[in-house]
């Protein structure tokens, strides 16, 4: 079975401009959203307290709100979490002395709300200073990852490809963040991990195409750069689609069965990988071609020892 059978290369580069325009539009739109609506930062980054409590019967949210307001927490955000027997209570950081005591008081207050058994399922408290640190570290990690990739691809391939790859990655990340801003999904540490995993996945995808571009430049001696890129993208298209498909299927499983705690993690990856697949086909190589990628840059083959060639396989 094959998804695509091509007799000749598809002219992907014909769509170079429309694709780049579309991407630019999406990126600008996302940046606009981020500027206007911002990101719904989760507890990890803002600091504060989240308490998840399990009730043996359906919980009465308004009653819980009243009790909490009486106990001195009128600003508590009370929501169902996963089911109606599961309640998440969020409390913004406050300038009290003993922040870590808040959870004790909330649990004690909750015990008054109903006769049914209340079970502490999860308490998370993050101090404001820790939140700020995590935010800094997260941003730093993303930059370091992109920089590392820029260097590695620049070294292994060529700076135009390297720049194309990193711009495409930035594109994936920004648009995914845009989605989170648009839907106001909570952005916590697991989502950050998902974004970094997305960078890893997307670069993987792009490298496979680039590797082929390099090979095609050597093979097709009389073609224009655009034709060469078309050839490379076409011949890797099956692989790109199959891998994205298996990964997406698995992520759908994770999304539906993984539970509420990793819902946003799965969402970020699911959306990001779809965008990433598109960008490694249209955006990354499109930018490289536009930057003036040509045969001469790829020849002579950079290092004589192409990895794996001439050497015995691992075993």
């Amino acid at each position, binding site marked *: *079975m094959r998804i695509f059978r091509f007799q000749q290369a598809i002219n992907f580069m014909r769509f170079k401009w429309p694709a780049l325009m579309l991407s630019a539009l999406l990126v600008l739109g996302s940046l606009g959203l981020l500027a206007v609506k911002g990101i719904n930062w989760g507890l990890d980054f803002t600091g504060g307290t989240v308490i998840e409590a*399990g009730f043996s019967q359906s919980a009465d949210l308004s009653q819980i709100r009243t009790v909490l307001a009486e106990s001195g927490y009128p600003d508590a955000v009370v929501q169902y979490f996963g089911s109606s027997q599961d309640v998440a209570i969020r409390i913004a950081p406050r300038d009290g002395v003993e922040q*870590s005591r808040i*959870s*004790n*008081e909330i*649990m*004690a207050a909750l015990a008054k709300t109903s006769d049914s058994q209340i*079970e*502490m*399922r*999860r*308490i*998370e*408290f*993050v*101090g404001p*200073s*820790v939140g700020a640190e*995590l935010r800094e570290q*997260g941003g*730093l*990690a993303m930059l370091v*990852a992109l920089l*590392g990739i820029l260097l590695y*691809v620049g070294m292994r391939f060529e700076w135009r490809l390297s720049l194309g790859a990193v711009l495409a990655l930035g594109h994936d990340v920004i648009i995914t963040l845009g989605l989170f801003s648009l839907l106001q999904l909570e952005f916590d*540490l*697991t989502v950050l*991990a998902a974004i*970094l*995993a997305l960078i*890893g*996945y997307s*670069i*993987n995808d792009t*490298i496979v195409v680039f*590797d*082929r571009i390099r090979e095609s430049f050597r093979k097709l001696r009389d073609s224009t750069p655009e034709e060469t890129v078309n050839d490379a993208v076409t011949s890797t298209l099956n*692989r790109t689609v*199959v*891998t994205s*498909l*298996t*990964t*997406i*299927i*698995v992520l759908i*499983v994770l999304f539906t069965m*993984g*539970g509420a*705690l*990793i819902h946003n*993690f*799965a969402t970020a*990856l699911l959306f990001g990988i779809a965008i990433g697949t598109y960008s490694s086909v249209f955006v990354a190589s499109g930018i490289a071609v536009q930057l003036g990628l040509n045969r001469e840059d790829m020849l002579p083959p950079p290092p004589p020892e*192409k*990895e*794996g060639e001439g050497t015995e*396989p691992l*075993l």
Partner: protein
Amino acid sequence: MLNQNPLWRYLLVVGVLLLALVYAMPNLYPEDPALNINATRGGAVSETTRQQLEQSFVSAGITPKAVTLEAGQVLARFASAEDQLRARQVATELLGNVNYVTALNLVPTTPDWLAAIGASPMKLGLDLRGGVHFLMAVDMKAALDKNINDLTQAFRADLREARVRYRSVTADTERGQVQILLRSAEDVAAARAALARLDREYVFTDGAAEFSLNVSLSENRIREIREYALNQNITIIRNRVNEIGVAEPLVQRQGADRIIVQLPGVQDPAQAKEILGATATLEFRLVDDQGDLAAALNGRLPPGSSLYYDRNGQPYLLENRIMLTGEHITNASSSYDEYGQPQVNISLDAQGGNQLSQATRDSIGRRMATVFIEYKPGEELQADGTPVLIKQEEVINAATIQARLGRSFRITGIGNPAEAQNLALLLRAGALIAPTQIIEERTIGPSLGQENIDLGMTAIMWGMVVVLVFMVIYYKVFGLIANVALVANLVLIVGIMSMIPGATLTLPGMAGIVLTVGMAVDANVLIFERIREELAEGRSVQQAIHQGYDRAFATIADSNITTLLVALILFGIGTGPVKGFAITLAIGILTSIFTAVVGTRLLVNLFWGGRRVQSLPM
């Protein structure tokens, strides 16, 4: 001939897989709910206690799976969590909770032959096991401030002793220095010379005012103070955590001023917080030698004295007047005296030195007892749900005062070096110089932990099934081969995770495994697509296989190295759960390269390599 491999390669790959399989096996055995019963303060539980425990379990109608004595602690295994909880009550009733600590635990039931080769199940993160995670910050400012204040007092005494007349000596904690105002330039020079002789780590700068001198501490000394404050807190927290009764606690330093505390299985974070936050103090009191101890034991206390006990239950009659409290202790360490006997050296701040000097002036020849006071949460609860703290006092040492004591003195006549070390540790613990604050808490209830495990397992299982089916449909027989590699990959991941001592499985880690399952087929997809292309270009089957693998390898290596790079960055910056994700992702990438590039090539070669084959079933 092309595409044939020597036998040893097959044996090697099979060997690696078998090894991983063996080390992955302990994960198949369920864990037993168990109780750990420890004696407090480094004591050991005796065989008699073990027998008593076993008998009282049986008479309470609980049949333990086993009650064993290992390394000075009793381990009792039970069939169900219900038995475990009831047994805990029985044990607490029997032993009380002063001298013994009972901790709930889950112990692996790894068969002996597996345990003998060091195989053990994967360690589960707190989000899967349930438990409490605290990040505590040590207030370094407080430690440094205290130091500056101590110095200020000390300088006054030092200058007086050196006969340097000063106008004032004040602490400037804002700038971390002591300001000394003097009367003349000569005095400034004299003060400088006198103080510099005492400690080379003082840094002198001229003050803004006339005839003034600022003294601050060198970078070195400040670092020492910070280290000391951090280590002291870690020691204290370790001690307290042991009191809570946690089977496998983790107390670890993080960065310059943070401490991570992980208490698996603790279900009541309020209690844990109380214990970690409670302060231990020390008091020095004179032993009342005039009073009648026997009468006091019968309830007739002499006026001005009270009864205290030491760890072994020996009674002491101590005066109510406190000679000195522990907050004045600046350091305590154990060493040996000139006769090679263990001793504990204690340093006090200037105020403490004066107090003790006053108090011991007329008490030479009498005994001085050191009382350690700690607060433990009791059974009763306060209105806000936190347990009421019970004060516990214990005499840790009583020594004869040989001379008038000053800022530094020593306690000799201690039984053995271990005891001296323990005493020094308790003395330091009673003199906490830098308070801590919980700045992050993550508590997962036990039921949520189990739920997370179940969710993760179903996700992994269904993810696998879907991908397996897809591969067979898409690549037919070759799909089957890729599937073998995928399953082998999962075994390898679990095996390696179980082998690496520091690796813990977390919920995001499980998500990482699911993701790896999706991505692991990528290497095989690359190879198979390449083989198809080579075939389409008209190469022979053997050449197509050979070229397909070789050419795909460069791509696989390049693309996975970049992903690995990202995983390493994630590991570097991530905390707990995210680190777990990074670990499984990194391991998954490595194992998938191995299984896809090496494993399936061997299989493909085994079936089709070196034969006259016209077409491939793909």
